[in-house]
């Protein structure tokens, strides 16, 4: 058996591949966080829960509607993205408003509808909880919209702390509800038939599905980077990030851009969730476990930096993989050690612009 630096090549490349897979998820998730932070100036702590929702929507589509993996890849990001849009319009954007009636209407009517569906109609078995929740949220949003004229917001940035508390609270609620309904042992999700099997390169064996995840993640990240850096829509986003007031004074609808951006960032999280479903089991805690590392990635790359989150996402996945080979004891802490060092030397992050 061939070895490199005393390590069998198969083990080395195996761990590198694993690192690359983890890096793929870090990259997509931190990219979504970076996009959201850039424009909304909010640290979206709900991101992990939304990633988990993506995986669950894939599972629901398969088990309730008979729609397989490829449909899930398309539908789950849109569905979870819409829940993100509802949250942004009714809760997050209202943080900046002096008038909280819209948020109150949303929360109260969502809870009432949820209770009606859950208790009154007898939707009590686990699988229907999420549906009742969704109906409640949609109804709440519609009602809040009808009862209250759209209030123009995004005039100023809100203190980080409020957004953080709101999104963190939402994450706990969402995870708790899914844990109640589905337990925490996890649900199985099969690798799609087209991607079973693997390639034997001689020096290592690569399962097809894992290769697909890396490629899909790279494509999604680069496409997002391209849209933001090279297109007209991206120019609007960058302008609104830099100076929302002036961008608005040119006739650009900044509040709508903010909503779309949040929905898109959330959709990215859900996409990562679908990609993850066949690798890790579909589990209410899957997001909470991953999101701490992803936040470290974001800090290392530089808050709000698009390219930074992509490069550091993949890079740190690889470093983590290498650490597993050469010094496994440190593999779960290496990212945080790097974070501490980067914060000491370059507080704005590797790709961040100093404020």
């Amino acid at each position, binding site marked *: 058996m061939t070895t490199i630096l005393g390590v069998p090549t198969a083990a080395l490349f195996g761990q590198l591949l694993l690192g690359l897979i983890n890096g793929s998820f870090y990259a997509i998730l931190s990219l979504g966080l970076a996009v959201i932070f850039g424009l909304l100036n909010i640290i979206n702590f709900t991101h992990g829960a939304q990633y988990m929702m993506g995986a669950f929507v894939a599972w629901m589509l398969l088990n309730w509607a008979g729609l397989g993996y490829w449909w899930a890849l398309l539908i789950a990001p849109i569905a979870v993205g819409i829940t993100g849009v509802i949250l942004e319009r009714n809760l997050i954007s209202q943080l900046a408003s002096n008038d909280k009636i819209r948020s109150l209407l949303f929360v109260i009517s969502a809870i009432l509808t949820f209770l009606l569906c859950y208790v009154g109609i007898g939707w009590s078995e686990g699988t229907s909880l999420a549906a009742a929740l969704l109906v409640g949220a949609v109804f709440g949003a519609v009602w809040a919209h009808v009862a209250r004229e759209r209030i123009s917001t995004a005039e100023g940035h809100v203190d980080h702390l409020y957004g953080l508390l709101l999104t963190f609270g939402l994450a706990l609620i969402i995870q708790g509800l899914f844990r109640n309904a589905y337990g925490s042992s996890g649900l199985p999700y099969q690798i799609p038939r087209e991607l079973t099997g693997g390639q034997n390169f001689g020096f290592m064996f690569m399962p097809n599905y894992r290769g697909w995840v890396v490629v899909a993640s790279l494509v999604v990240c680069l496409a997002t980077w391209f849209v933001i850096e090279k297109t*007209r829509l991206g120019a609007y986003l960058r*302008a609104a990030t830099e100076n929302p007031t*002036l*961008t*608005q*004074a*040119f*006739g650009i*609808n900044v509040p709508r851009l903010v909503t779309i951006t949040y929905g898109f960032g959330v959709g990215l999280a859900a996409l990562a969730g679908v990609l993850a479903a066949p690798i890790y089991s579909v589990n209410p805690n899957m997001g909470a476990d991953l999101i701490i590392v992803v936040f470290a990635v974001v800090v290392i790359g530089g808050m709000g930096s698009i390219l930074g989150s992509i490069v550091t996402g993949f890079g740190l996945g690889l470093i983590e993989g290498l650490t597993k080979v050469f010094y496994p004891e440190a593999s779960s802490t290496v990212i945080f050690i790097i974070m501490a060092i980067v914060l000491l030397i370059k507080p704005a992050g590797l790709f961040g612009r100093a404020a």
Partner: protein
Amino acid sequence: MAEAALATRAPAAAGAALLSVRGLEAWYGESHVLHGISFDVGEGEVVTLLGRNGAGKTTTLKSIIGILQKRRGSIVFEGVETIRMPSRQIARLGIGYVPEERGIFSSLSVEENLFLPPQVRPGGLPVERIFELFPNLRERLSSQGTKLSGGEQQMLSIARILRTGARMLLLDEPTEGLAPVIVEQIGRTIAELKKQGFTIILVEQNFRFASTVADRHYVVEQGRVVDMILNSELDQNVDKLHAYLGV
């Protein structure tokens, strides 16, 4: 002070006012900055707001475009009351804003800055005409916006709203801190825009410059319009104006 009388003596040549400001009050947070500004601007006119630092000239422009949300009174543009509108709707009525700090975006290239403001009306200047007015911009299209010189940034800031079809331009101190050659070029540009029928409100400290381009001057003092001077009568009023401006 007979502000209404001042305002109605206004649009000398032009017909009905394109923009009509009445009793405009505005606040920065708790501090009350404008105390009832009233004036009119006729179609095709170039009007300046003159006054000392802190008199409320910039604040008046910000209130018209709607960047300053805390405002009261009446601002009617082409017959539409805009006092309750957010700035994005006011811009869509056809008002272009050039802020004092120029507002060039550093995360956008010169080209992206130029094409950022969406078209709000048909009939904006074609890009070729814009490059004739500001030939420097053509060579710098791919540079980062804020890498331009101060004068070029000012030109870019004006150029980008000429594309949009806005017929009324709000220019906040376009000559501030610029070399005399550039000031001259901006003066020629304003004259050219006037010839093409643009309506312009110009905030200026430099009244010598203002007198070369404007039809009328409104004098702003402590958040009110206190006088209106026709450019043709400027010579008779130089002493009065010096007293207002404290020069």
